[in-house]
């Protein structure tokens, strides 16, 4: 019995890590990973929204009619994001300032709608909460890792503490926008080299890489193909 819940955590953290394996939610990953602390802030706020949205959607899964489920999910997620945003503005204003527009943009983070569609609308509330926790923590870890690499290389610090010796000039490019693309590319290269299967094919070969399980996956895959002809 317990195993099922632990399995959800393992699944989110490692087996289907949303950022590194499923390649979901690339926008926030690239954007806020300039500092390790930002990664934690963004990761945890997304985790909070994800746990709550999974819980609410799972509780309502029998009462939401199938035809209007996506708009309903979007409204639920948007409300939760607004609550999170207001709480962060009040209690952690420094993190709120640093993350800026990317907090309201959690609404369009594919991980959240993806999990609602792929998991929460089919499973019990408790399992969905564990799924949200696993996925959220997996996202947080990946984001913090990317932030850490960029911060060490680009600024010479880790979590604000100096780690590179004073004589070493940090490579500023890594905290600039290009560094984000480079570091994520590096992660995928490493995973390719050691043979971990990622779903990067979807990332570069159709829009379903992002909205794998979400809203218009069906329409958009077939329609992109149609357009390609």
């Amino acid at each position, binding site marked *: 019995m317990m195993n099922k819940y632990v399995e959800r955590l393992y699944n989110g953290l490692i087996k289907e890590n949303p950022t590194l394996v499923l390649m979901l939610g690339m926008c926030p990953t*690239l954007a806020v990973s300039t500092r390790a602390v930002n990664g934690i802030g963004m990761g945890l706020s997304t985790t909070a929204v994800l746990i709550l949205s999974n819980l609410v959607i799972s509780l309502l899964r029998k009462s939401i009619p199938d035809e209007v489920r996506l708009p309903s999910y979007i409204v639920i997620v948007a409300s939760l994001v607004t609550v999170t945003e207001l709480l962060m503005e009040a209690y952690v204003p420094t993190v709120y300032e640093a993350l800026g527009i990317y907090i309201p943009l959690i609404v369009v983070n594919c991980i959240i709608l993806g999990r609602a569609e792929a998991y929460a609308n089919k499973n019990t509330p408790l399992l969905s909460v564990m799924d949200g926790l696993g996925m959220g923590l997996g996202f947080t870890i990946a984001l913090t890792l990317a932030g850490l690499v960029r911060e060490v290389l680009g600024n010479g610090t880790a979590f604000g503490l100096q780690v590179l010796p004073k004589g070493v000039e940090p490579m500023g490019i890594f905290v600039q926008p290009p560094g984000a693309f480079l570091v994520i590319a590096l992660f995928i290269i490493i995973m390719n080299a050691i043979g971990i299967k990622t779903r990067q094919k979807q990332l570069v070969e159709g829009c379903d890489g992002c909205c794998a399980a979400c809203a218009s996956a069906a329409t958009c895959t077939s*329609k992109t193909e149609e357009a390609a002809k």
Partner: protein
Amino acid sequence: MNNSLILIVVSGALINNVVLNQFLGICSFLGVSKQMKASASLGCAVIFVMTIASAVASILYDLILEPFGLQFMKTIVFILVIAALVQIVEMYLKKNSPAVYKSLGIFLPLITTNCAVLGVALTNVQSEYNFIESVLAGFGTAVGFTIAIVLLASIRSRIREQDLPAPLRGAPIVLISAALMSIAFMGFSGLSF
């Protein structure tokens, strides 16, 4: 005054490029750029939708949300308005200009999930732009998106013919190309008026 309006467009298109500098709309940037023709069409559809969405969002914010003190509702309102708007535009085009619909219509549903559209609407509010400035910012940003995706699509059509080391194939080389483009676009930050 005119200078600042031009600056908004140029800054949206080049200096603060939405994809390469602000990382919005990465999904479609990486996903659709496989095909040159599809990229150009998506770009046009984005220009169309983003300009209209900025205008509508700005009107709603100034006339409804602000007078009633409902600014905190902006995320919910904007995302619903954008989703509805895309649907309406799609239906309108389908009925009234089938030619345009044929080239743009297929990309319209895709744009609903494009975070760049919501991002622009929210940025406009944050920068306290008025109606005209919002529309221009939306237009400029969308032009920036189009430039970036068309450029990446052309680069990728060249990459396809190269013999790459195995770990680099697929997403990594595309991301590295995007990084190089981003470096190039950093040069625009020196533009001043």
